[in-house]
């Protein structure tokens, strides 16, 4: 082979080799660039901001960890944490079992109009928190509201019960509203999980003499394990991010005695009303880390995550 030709083919090979080396980086580059701009940079910036007292982005005073120290000594922060935790607890305790119940009902072979019910139960989730908040703030009106009228007729509860003005009743009202909004979402996931459980397992259980409860306990629930763990995690994360529902229902504020104050509302009030983005960043980071810990604990308790043995 002439020398020149050998040189050309080597060059082509080298170019191809380089292109092959670069190609994967080019493929991932759009994501990496966008992630760096819209993900990593804001994260790093917000962490830095959390070390400052700010008045908008220009007036900043370095305070080190003082924002965190102040936050942990602020009774309002702990009130927000307590309210959010209570809401999360009741949301999970009510929404997942209610979603499971509905899904079992709709999965029954004798159930007719399954698609219609599925749509009906899921639709509150489609309209969003603001719409649901407005709707329920009308339903909860004392004296003339539908909920008080219904409860009065059924249980004799006073007509002037003030769901959204009595600090003791704000959280039950929020939990009820959230239940109505989210139960269909859980139901759809669980229904999909139910339909993926092998029918053979039920037949085998039946042959072994298992009754309905035993089939549910030993076949259905284990079959739904992954779906339920997923729902547990996203319910927890979603509940910890609660904002628009109480914001709308309580007239754009934390409600009486701050009984509807959530962590995200606390963050918003400090960041956008008080104007301290640094403090709001500290709250945001604390929320993110808190959620991470709660999620890991949940994964550990449900056995979905086991730390690697040393």
């Amino acid at each position, binding site marked *: 082979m002439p020398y020149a030709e050998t040189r050309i083919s080597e060059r082509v090979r080298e170019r191809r080799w380089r292109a092959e080396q670069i190609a994967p980086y080019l493929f991932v580059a759009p994501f990496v660039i966008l992630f760096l701009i819209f993900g990593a940079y804001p994260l790093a910036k917000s962490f830095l901001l959390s070390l400052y007292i700010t008045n908008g982005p220009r007036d900043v005073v370095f305070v080190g960890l003082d924002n965190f120290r102040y936050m942990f000594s602020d009774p309002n922060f702990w009130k927000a944490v307590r309210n959010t935790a209570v809401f999360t607890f009741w949301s999970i305790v009510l929404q997942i079992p209610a979603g499971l119940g509905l899904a079992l009902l709709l999965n029954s072979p004798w159930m007719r109009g399954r698609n219609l019910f599925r749509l009906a139960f899921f639709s509150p989730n489609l309209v969003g928190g603001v719409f649901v908040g407005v709707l329920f703030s009308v339903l909860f009106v004392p004296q003339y509201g539908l909920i008080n009228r219904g409860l009065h007729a059924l249980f004799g509860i006073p007509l002037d019960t*003030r769901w959204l003005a009595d600090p003791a009743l704000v959280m039950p009202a929020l939990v009820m509203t959230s239940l109505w909004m989210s139960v269909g979402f859980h139901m759809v996931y669980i229904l999909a999980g139910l339909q993926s459980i092998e029918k053979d397992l039920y037949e085998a259980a039946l042959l072994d003499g298992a009754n309905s409860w035993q089939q549910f306990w030993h076949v259905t629930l284990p079959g739904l394990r992954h779906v339920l763990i997923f729902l547990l995690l996203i319910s927890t994360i979603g509940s910890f991010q609660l904002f628009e529902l109480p914001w709308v229902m309580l007239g754009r504020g934390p409600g009486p*005695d701050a009984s509807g104050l959530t962590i995200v509302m606390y963050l918003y009030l400090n960041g956008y009303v008080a104007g301290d983005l640094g403090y709001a960043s500290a709250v945001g980071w604390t929320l993110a880390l808190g959620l991470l810990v709660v999620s890991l604990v949940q994964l550990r308790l449900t056995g979905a995550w086991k730390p690697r043995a040393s």
Partner: protein
Amino acid sequence: MSKFPYGNSALAMLGLAAASGAYLTLNRPSKAKPTLRLWTFAKTHGEAYQQAVPAFVKAHPGVSVEVQIVAGEAVTSRLQAAFWADLDVPDLVEVEISWAGSFFRGPLESIGFLDLTERIHQSGLWERVVQARFAPYTSRGRIFGIPHDVHPVMLAYRRDLVERLGIDVEQLRTWDDFIEVGRRITQPGKRYMIELPDTESSRFEALLFQRDGGYFDEQGQCIMDNEIAVETMKMYVPMVAGRSRIASDLGGGQIFTRAVEDGYFLFLITPDWRSRTIEQDVPRVAGRMALMPLPAVAPGKRRTTTWGGTMIGITRRCQNPDLAWELIMHLYFNREDLAQRFRDTNILPPARDLWDHPAYYEKRPYWSHQPLGALYAKLAPDVPFQYTSPYISLAKAKMSEALIGCVRYYNTYGERGFDGYVRKQLEQSAEEVRRAIRRNPYL
């Protein structure tokens, strides 16, 4: 025709993106910007300004003014974000009284509004306007807003029912008189003397201002636990709590309409703006409602207070502050326009020299033919000062918490130990506010 390699869905999305991109490119919004852009949160204000703008534009050839109505608290959050980002900042903005303080948190030179102190003094507005109304828009001695209103407060009442019950409103001179009659005529669950909430502090703070109390003093120091606040709490809570309560609250909207129609409340704390709301929300009681001055704390003391308010400010980004100032003068101090606006909204303008217009003396059939404007104007010069702070929202929230705590205590223990409990609650609330203030490196 060869198939698109990524499928028909991707092809459809691509086509849609190309079509919408082409549409947007071909239909670019006009680049012509108005000379002045004004944001307001109140629809009634916006509509009135839109009517007033043509006359201003006619007097200023080549000038254009755009009035934008930005909903509720969105004004505050959007404006705050606009100030920070230095983008989309309007030239003039109306801000609600409880939110104004939040803009005064940083160093004076960083406040997004122009300092109007000199203009106010040079133009004579300082003498014309009820001076108490500048206080909520003042920070560290500098004034950043022109008051839109005075909002003096009266008591609206169901005249027909009050007369039937044999109550002589002329005799309700002090709160003690009022409470005494209230205890006589209140029937729990059926009829209450007055509408007062026990879970939020808007009406409580009006009564606090009546006594020259407040959240902050002129220097921005938190005073919400002083003796005036203690005395106000000790008067207010027994009205809304305990066995001898004379007040209730059901909220707004339809329920409020029904409650007034049914005679559930007899008296309502009513600033001028609310008198219009009542006319609109409860039209069926027209001719059966009337107004009276607020009972005084003691004989001969102030018979009014204030509730609510709005300021207009010129932003630092405004390219033409002189023109913006002229627009404010046109919108806020035009005699004839304001008289008509009063007829539409019942809101008394803040300049005293405007109150002699016949519009303010017109008798209103809804209010039993009382001259609504004259009644409010008579009380307006006496409205109390209310000073603000960047921490006003926190202070209001803490006051509400203190109120709720005191109501709970009173419902359980009554008068026993109540004085000490009130003091402790207010001190705790005030200390939380002071703690937040101490962290601010700019004040």
